């Protein structure tokens, strides 16, 4: 990886600083803390390609129109654990997890298409997480 990066699909950083985050239909996700499963699936979601992270986070990034589809599944491998971080300002109950993804991308202007290997071949970096969180206005300071 590193200097070999050739594509970077993300929604961009908002003028308000909102980072790579976009509203999605609620039926595209499912999080069940009791069963320890979560899923996030979308098809043909418009997603610009910023080529690499340095360009993506630069003050005036350039991008090419693209489209992605993905299917992500989380599986908890621990019970619920309470966390409270008073310095950052969040609290909640979380389960450690693993996750797998299948995804694809199309970039017609670049004559480029990508499809990942099956989800079972993907690996989780460090420890994934699912949980119920409260931050900001909802973070109890006492």
């Amino acid at each position, binding site marked *: *990886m*590193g200097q070999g*990066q*050739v594509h970077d*699909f*993300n*929604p961009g*950083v908002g003028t308000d*600083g*909102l*980072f*790579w*985050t*976009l509203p999605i239909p*609620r039926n*595209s*996700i499912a*999080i069940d*803390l009791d069963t320890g499963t*979560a899923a*996030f699936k979308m098809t043909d*979601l418009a*997603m610009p390609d910023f080529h*690499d*992270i*340095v360009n993506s*986070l*630069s*003050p*005036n990034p350039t991008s090419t129109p693209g489209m*992605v589809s*993905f299917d*992500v599944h989380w599986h908890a491998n621990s019970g619920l654990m309470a966390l409270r971080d008073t310095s950052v*300002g969040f609290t909640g109950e979380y389960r450690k*997890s693993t*996750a797998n*993804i299948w*995804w694809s*991308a199309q970039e017609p202007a670049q004559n*480029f*298409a*990508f499809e*990942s*290997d099956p989800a079972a*071949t*993907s*690996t*989780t*970096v*460090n*420890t*994934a*997480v*699912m*949980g*119920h*969180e409260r*931050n*900001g206005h*909802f973070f109890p300071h006492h």
Partner: protein
Amino acid sequence: MTLSQLQPRDGPWPDGRMIVSTPGGPRAVGHAHFWERAFSRRQFVRAAAGTTAAIAGASLWMPAGVSAARPGDASPNPIPGGDPTLEQAFGKLFHVYFPYFGQEVATITDFNGKLAAAEMQGAGTGTNTMTGATTRYTYDADMRVMDGVYVAKDGHTHRGAFGFV
């Protein structure tokens, strides 16, 4: 979702980590976020220098949460903090932390709800749709979801779902 050229010697370790070829020989990755791995030392310096100049000329930037409520705007506000690694690299705060257990994985603030976050790696095939030629790539995907109630820019509490891609 980042894509990188797959090196000839690359492949999975028995424990699932990927091997990445480097001038000093293969090394194991999988314990640092791709943002850290994606930067060379030179890129860090270049990015930081370029951003310093840009910030010097940007007088209208305001921290999130400072602006007054915006009627009719149901969009969420970003979390106030962010990981120092990115701030050090670019000379600017980005409102995001790494997607690991124990970290603040939400990217919106004033949020009360369920979420899930993960960084995943793997490989896949890219195709030149004109020629049909294929190339193998490694990828890194940081994916998150948030579903619950949040206080929006309009000052009101809304229910909604957000994805981090």
